[in-house]
């Protein structure tokens, strides 16, 4: 940690959060909101004189509220940076008539109440997301009595109690009587592997963390009675089984079964009722202290960051990697990488491994000092452009400029263009060529699919990042769905021109699905808003023309929603079965009528 503080190549922004991200791989502009510390970071020597005079006492977050701190504080002795900070919401204020005692106490004069929050812009080529986790709050699991009974602790609170730097100086004591417990129980999978409250997934580290804690206890108190209540012990890593066996050898009892209920006895001990699934018997265990091995949840700001960076999440709420096996640290967004629990629950070793991998992936991308862009960008046909400005209006990247007044044709800034193709779909004059996804390329693909037995097939337009990936995920999961589904991949659902849809219906497509990323998750900022609007427009036109609107479906399917994809294909097949040859004949007749007759 201190290496980070000292490293000449690292700029550390603490008390800071990302507020906006612009740009693309190689050239990101990241806005950071840096909250005021009210203590000069470089001047403060962490002497602690200010703390002695601060009259405000608050629970200490670092010690999980098991001790107290002042409104001016250092989070923990080894903090980096070591400078103190003031929680301005707790501070009584700098008006000398109110308080300002710390200002007087500080010899170095490094407390400055005139500091204000800053906005910093960092320009970077790559981004590593290492936002970590939120520990599960077991209060909702009423049966375990956390917060009702003081001697029921979370595993993180327990860590602080046995830590030499903790509130009890490493002396294990019960919160109620401050005496050392003679027996300690651990309950596993608290908030993990649960179909009810908590999460369904395994949090990966709690088994070994508990085993570690039992070893720590046995080292100090060889005679202590220790019981672990578990479903399975997952000791899968290198050296893990060894620790598990050592714990067993030292006399720790592993009881298979999660307690159904915990009650407090007159001595403030915990009476645990558990069905021992090894014996099938209901057992009661009295324990002086109970530790809940809490699981991990995604970090609080995950959703916000995901939207800012255009990333995807798994159904669990953790960040989704580009490929679970071959690109486990890359995000689908080029130039963004994951490290640690942001991607999934993991222990320290795995976090460190993934972090080094992420750093190597970032270096691999940056070391040449230049970047080759995807040439999948749009182009203007100046002969067809009417300078109407629609393309510039819909471009999520402001990559197109048009001078409407002087009727100067649109110009695309190819460096800023990300290639979603929304402009080409919206252009009423066919004046935009979307490279690699031209009108011709897409319609020919659809036409050749509809050449034979079109009535029996389901045409699906899927965006590369979400829905096409969702279909791949259905494949990887071997989820079976009707075999008459055919996908056409575009980079974004925003590319789906309404004429692709009309053309498909003309070619006797019974049903058409347009699918893309969920609103808010679009890989191209908000291009799928235009998809939504366009489909609504087509639906209205279909109604007016007398074509059943539900033959055109719009569905948001994410890269992680393989199940949804396969289920929705079954629904599409139901819809397709409801479209008769006569109905298709009628549609073709309507669509082939010359323009003016349609009205």
């Amino acid at each position: 940690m201190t290496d980070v503080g000292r490293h000449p190549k690292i700029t550390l922004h603490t008390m800071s959060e990302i507020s906006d991200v612009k740009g693309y791989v190689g050239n990101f502009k990241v806005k950071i909101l840096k909250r005021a510390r009210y203590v000069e970071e470089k001047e403060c020597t962490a002497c602690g004189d200010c703390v002695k005079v601060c009259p405000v006492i608050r629970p200490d977050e670092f010690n999980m509220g098991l001790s107290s701190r002042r409104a001016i504080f250092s989070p923990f002795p080894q903090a980096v940076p070591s400078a103190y900070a003031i929680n301005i919401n707790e501070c009584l204020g700098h008006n000398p008539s109110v308080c300002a005692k710390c200002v007087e106490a500080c010899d170095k004069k490094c407390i400055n109440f005139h500091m204000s929050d800053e906005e910093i812009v960092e320009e970077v080529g790559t981004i590593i997301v290492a936002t970590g986790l939120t520990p599960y709050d077991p209060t909702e699991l009423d049966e375990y009595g956390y917060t009702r009974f003081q001697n029921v602790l979370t595993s993180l609170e327990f860590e602080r109690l046995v830590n030499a730097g903790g509130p009890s100086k490493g002396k294990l004591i019960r919160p109620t009587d401050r005496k050392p417990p003679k027996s300690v129980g651990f309950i596993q999978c608290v908030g993990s592997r649960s179909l009810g409250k908590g999460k369904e997934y395994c949090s990966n580290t709690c088994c070994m963390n508990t085993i570690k804690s039992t070893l720590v206890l046995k080292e100090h108190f060889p005679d202590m009675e220790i019981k672990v209540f578990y479903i399975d012990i997952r000791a899968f890593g290198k050296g893990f089984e060894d620790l598990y066996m050592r714990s067993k050898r030292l006399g720790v009892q592993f009881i298979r079964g999660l307690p159904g209920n915990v009650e407090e006895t007159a001595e403030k001990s915990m009476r645990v009722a558990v069905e021992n699934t090894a014996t099938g018997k209901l057992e009661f265990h009295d324990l002086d202290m109970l530790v809940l091995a809490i699981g991990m949840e995604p970090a609080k700001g995950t959703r916000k960051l995901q939207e800012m960076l255009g990333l995807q999440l798994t159904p669990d709420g953790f960040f989704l990697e580009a490929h679970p096996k071959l690109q486990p640290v890359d995000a689908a967004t080029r130039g963004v990488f994951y490290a640690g629990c942001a991607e999934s629950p993991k222990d320290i070793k795995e976090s460190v491994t993934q972090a080094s991998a992420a750093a190597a992936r970032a270096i691999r991308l940056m070391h040449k000092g230049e970047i080759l862009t995807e040439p999948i960008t749009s182009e203007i046909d100046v002969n067809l452009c009417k300078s109407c400005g629609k393309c510039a209006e819909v471009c999520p990247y402001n990559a197109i400029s048009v001078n409407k007044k002087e009727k100067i044709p649109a110009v695309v800034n190819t460096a800023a263009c990300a290639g979603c193709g929304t402009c080409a779909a919206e252009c009423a004059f066919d004046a935009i060529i979307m490279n690699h996804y031209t009108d011709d390329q897409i319609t020919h693909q659809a036409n050749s699919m509809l050449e034979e037995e079109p009535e029996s097939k389901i045409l699906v337009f899927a965006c590369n990042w979400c829905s096409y990936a969702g279909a791949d995920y259905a494949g990887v999961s071997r989820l079976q769905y009707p075999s008459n589904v055919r996908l056409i991949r575009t980079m974004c659902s925003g590319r789906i021109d309404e004429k692709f849809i009309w053309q498909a219906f003309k070619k006797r497509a019974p049903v058409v699905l347009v699918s893309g990323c969920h609103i808010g998750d679009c890989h191209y900022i908000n291009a799928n808003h235009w998809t939504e609007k366009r489909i609504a427009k087509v639906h209205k036109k279909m109604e007016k023309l007398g074509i059943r609107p539900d033959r055109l479906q719009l569905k948001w399917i994410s890269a992680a929603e393989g199940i949804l994809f396969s289920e929705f294909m079954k629904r599409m097949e139901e819809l397709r079965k409801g479209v008769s040859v006569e109905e298709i004949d009628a549609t073709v007749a309507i669509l082939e009528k010359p323009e003016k007759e349609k009205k």
Partner: protein
Amino acid sequence: MEAVNLTTSPLSNEKAERIGVYVCRCGLNIAQTVDCGEVARMASALENVVVSKDIGYACSEPGQHEIVDDISENSLDRIVIASCSPRLHEPTFRQMLQRAGLNPYLLEMANLREQCSWVHMNEPDAATKKAFDLVKMSVSRVRLLWPLTPERLPLIKRTMVIGGGVAGIQAALDLADNDYEVALVEKSPSIGGIMATLDKTFPTMDCSI
């Protein structure tokens, strides 16, 4: 910012396209459901298809070698690879085209594994029919593709690490020790994250800080 030959005009239409189609068996991943030989045989009748064959593992070294040889021997100018998802191996095959002297964007992939053999495992006939359809769609698309050339842009050799827990710290140090500038952003007053609150850590049983 200098644009390097952003070629976007269609190839001249004077010469007919010469398309190579490769239906990958992917061991048995595709072949146990889809009749790959049959798909390749049907595809050989499609317009402009000069070579059409099934192949054990298109992505493997011998697989790629065979395709590259075919490209030069038969003057192929566009390639359809019917195999796994383009999200997996499109970069592999684009590089292969480049090695063979073709523009990497004259490639189209038909997804016969994730979107066909694996999702229609109990319907081999229907899956084979679908596989051919997917190949046919790809052939009609590849015929219309244009060569494209990427643009070179300057890049900022600086990384932002969001989060100062154990993962963020490790990533920042690895980058910085390799002489890359790092901006490490942490929302709380100190780095360290959850790791710093732990007492001893497994498997080494030493302290966390």
